């Protein structure tokens, strides 16, 4: 059971959990997001075949105001 962090919060997921499933588990289903794992951008098209490993740091970001 991989232990990850999602936006700096620890999260345990099932062994065969991929990124698509993680996004649902973490509560971001159908939201406007972009994702990086361990600092590397993951395109949407790769979510369903991106496997997760213990220690992965997942960043899920959303739009916000900026200057």
């Amino acid at each position, binding site marked *: 059971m991989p232990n990850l962090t999602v*936006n*700096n919060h620890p999260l345990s997921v099932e062994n065969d959990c991929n990124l698509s499933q993680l996004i649902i588990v*973490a*509560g*971001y289903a159908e*939201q*406007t*997001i*972009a*994702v*990086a794992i361990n*600092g*590397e*951008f993951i*395109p*949407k098209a790769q979510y369903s075949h991106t496997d997760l490993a213990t220690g992965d740091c997942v*960043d*899920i*970001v*959303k*739009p*916000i*105001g*900026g*200057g």
Partner: protein
Amino acid sequence: MNTVNTSASDTLTLYDETFSSRFLLGTALYRSPLQMSEAIQASGTEFITLSLRQQNPQKNDGDAFWQLLKDTGCQLLPNTAGCKTAKEAINLAEMSRELFETPWIKLEVIGDDYNLQPDPFELLIAATELIKRGFKVLPYCTDDLVLCLRLVDAGCQVLMPWGAPIGTGRGLMNKYHLSSLRERISHIPLIIDAGLGSPSQAAAALEMGFDAVLLNTAVATADDPVLMARAFSLAIQAGRSGYLAGLMQRRQTASPSTPILGQPFWHNHPPEHK
């Protein structure tokens, strides 16, 4: 009588796209989304900056905010604010391109937390890579001439030197460096980004020949952001008109504008001091 003399043909071209406004506006720090929308409208801007951040999935504010910005009809300019390395900035730029569906990126790579000064070395690495990947890069940079020349060499078709550190409102801190930049890099647009606190400072930037300004704090934190957005817009138009009209040369000594010839009572004037 036409009171605004910047003509419709005086447009701003960035990466082969044409804009009529020379005012780029940020979307942070407003007291409410409604106030932000009204300020954007009052500014007449066609280009608004925004960012990406981690947010609580239960508070789905990001989607509502995103929809609000799309409704403005403005071109979106995502930033890489907060990034401290080229790698971070490149990855955040890729995330922005996918999410916002735009190749435009305001490239920020910060080298110092105290004054939020861009890191010139990481900035150049990131700009070079992002240009190769097809981004339209608008680098937030210092007014260092050599850095700016290197960014142009890397393929940047627009540069955004700071007026002063972000959020300080101190205006054009180093006019010598900025005027040198304008003189040496005359073939691409230069946008003053950051540090502008008042409309007169924006007008001064345009009078110096800078092509546009980008700001956020001065509008968003004003007592009346909508009125301030309008004030900046008018100042930017005034500064641009002044630049196009051609500013007079400064003189060390006074020179009368009214003709001396025909001056009455000349014989009553006391002799000049020696």
